[in-house]
């Protein structure tokens, strides 16, 4: 009974409040952030009343409410020749699979209580967690493919086809990049991976995946972005060419797809943070069972609950910044061409992921304490930074104008 109640509470707090709330805010962030990146203002119009002669827009946050209201009150239109059952179910599939993945992500350190014992801040602690993430994650594409098929519209079908092909191609790379992490941390259970990232290498470098496996982190991020169908891999949507798999959807059907996309961003961030950014951990500040962070230093409270709250806060902040980074990448890069997408997936990511596995295996076999792996990782990061900062720049060709 207690297990059910605690699981339900965790589900509500993490999946519904945190993830869905963040997804809702992301809809606003996406617009506002892209606007500011492109020297625009973004949404500033929705308001209920005026304050000092100007509409009270609350930075445009009210657009979330306006959008939700609009979505709810629009006509849920189903095309005449659509497969009605599948058409209705399809948006839910992607949405639900995303939420299932969240159940496997640890969002805080274990809560040690006297009365109820150890409560893991993770909805489901499953030994094969990472494999389940991959398995369930690949189911998400069914929603898209079925939506495209059930719409009985050739453009929507094209979108669904593109989504499945893309998903199949990048899942391989995705799975292979994670192997490096598995080798390094020696577990497929996500909270174990987080715990394995505790501590410092050489006394200063956090034992995070991003430092131990920088290459895998990049490959994972790229492949996972392609899995979530976000720009520059948004070919299934491709609004300038085929409008996308949700072409025939209106009202909340479309809303589910849109919200699902943002949920996927949150999920991807959660997984990435868990695998490569140390999960809920913050080196120097949050220790094994106690924390010298927010509650520890400021409020002088240093028990397990404070520790858990600190961990959740850190996790939330990390996830937020990963989401923001994903949005920024989206508003920086143009969409790939389909052949480029396929070439990148099969001919670049796949060999590189394999190479990463061999390199990681070799270095881990040589030094199981991961020190050498850390050396190599830091060296790669430094080299990358050097190339970005000091690398050759192409002089822009003289534009001829109109």
């Amino acid at each position, binding site marked *: 009974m207690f297990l059910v109640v605690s699981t339900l509470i965790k589900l509500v707090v993490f999946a519904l409040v945190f993830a869905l709330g963040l997804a809702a805010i992301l809809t606003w962030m996406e617009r506002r952030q892209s606007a*500011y990146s*492109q020297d625009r*203002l973004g949404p500033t119009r929705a308001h209920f009343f005026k304050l000092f002669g100007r509409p009270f827009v609350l930075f445009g946050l009210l657009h979330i409410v306006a959008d939700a209201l609009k979505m709810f009150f629009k006509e849920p239109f189903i095309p005449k020749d659509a497969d009605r059952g599948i058409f209705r179910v399809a948006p839910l599939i992607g949405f639900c699979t995303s939420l299932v993945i969240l159940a496997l992500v640890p969002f805080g350190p274990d809560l040690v209580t006297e009365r109820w014992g150890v409560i893991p801040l993770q909805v489901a602690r499953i030994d094969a967690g990472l494999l389940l993430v991959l398995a369930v994650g690949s189911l998400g594409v069914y929603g898209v493919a079925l939506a495209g098929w059930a719409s009985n519209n050739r453009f929507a079908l094209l979108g669904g086809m593109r989504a499945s092909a893309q998903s199949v191609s990048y899942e391989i790379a995705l799975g292979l990049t994670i192997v490096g992490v598995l080798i390094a941390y020696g577990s497929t259970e996500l909270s174990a991976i987080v715990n394995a990232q505790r501590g410092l290498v050489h006394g200063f470098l956090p034992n995070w995946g991003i430092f131990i496996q920088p290459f895998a982190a990049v490959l994972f991020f790229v492949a996972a972005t392609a899995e979530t169908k976000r720009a520059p891999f948004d070919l299934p949507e491709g609004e300038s060419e085929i409008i996308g798999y949700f072409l025939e959807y209106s009202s909340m059907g479309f809303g589910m797809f849109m919200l699902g996309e943002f949920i996927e961003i949150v999920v991807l961030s959660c997984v990435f943070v868990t695998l490569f950014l140390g999960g809920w951990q913050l080196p120097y500040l949050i220790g094994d069972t106690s924390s010298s962070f927010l509650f520890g230093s400021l409020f002088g409270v240093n028990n397990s609950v404070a520790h858990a709250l600190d961990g959740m806060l850190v996790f939330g902040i990390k996830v937020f910044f990963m989401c923001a980074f994903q949005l920024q*990448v989206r508003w*920086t890069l143009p969409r790939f061409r389909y052949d480029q997408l396929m070439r990148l997936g099969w001919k670049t990511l796949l060999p590189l992921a394999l190479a990463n596995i061999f390199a990681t295996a070799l270095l881990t076999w040589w030094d199981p304490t991961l020190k050498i792996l850390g050396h190599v990782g830091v060296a790669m990061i430094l080299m990358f930074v050097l*190339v*970005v900062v000091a*690398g050759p720049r192409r002089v822009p060709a003289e534009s001829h104008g109109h």
Partner: protein
Amino acid sequence: MAIRVRKQVEFSFYEKSYLPEVARGVFVTLSHFFHNLFGRRATRPLQTLRYPYERRVYPQRFRGQHRLLAREDGSPRCVACYMCATACPAYCIHIVAAESPDPKIEKYPAAFEIDMLRCIYCGFCVEACPEDAIRMDTGIHTPAFLRREDAVVGRVDLMSLSGQAGTPPAFGAQNYREKKPAGA
């Protein structure tokens, strides 16, 4: 139209690896983002105004709604010479000339109408006017209309408008009159 052959750009290995350029691109958009988020309003790249609530200060030479100027006795300065109508590229000025009641003045506009829907606010009429009788210095936008007929603004309405605050009341006009030979 000249045909320009664009050379195929050859990418180096470094560029083909894509990631450093992506990082630079993200840096560019991020720098815009932070400039706009934290930069001072006057200097940030984002210069959009929330129009009805914020308005740009129009320069003195902003071409807004036209007005017709009057002589000291209140009669229109316009002599119905049709120079504005001739210069008008949109054919929006309609004048009916008539014998002026003042014997010193040859003719005056019995009707002077501007079709605001046709007007393109080029200011040619102002330049063409030899009497400085028409100006676009009211500093106001032409108001919205509900009916097509309302868009045709007549002489009385055009003369009832005043210039933008700060504009000299009869800029240059007096000088022009004085230079002309008396009695002309």
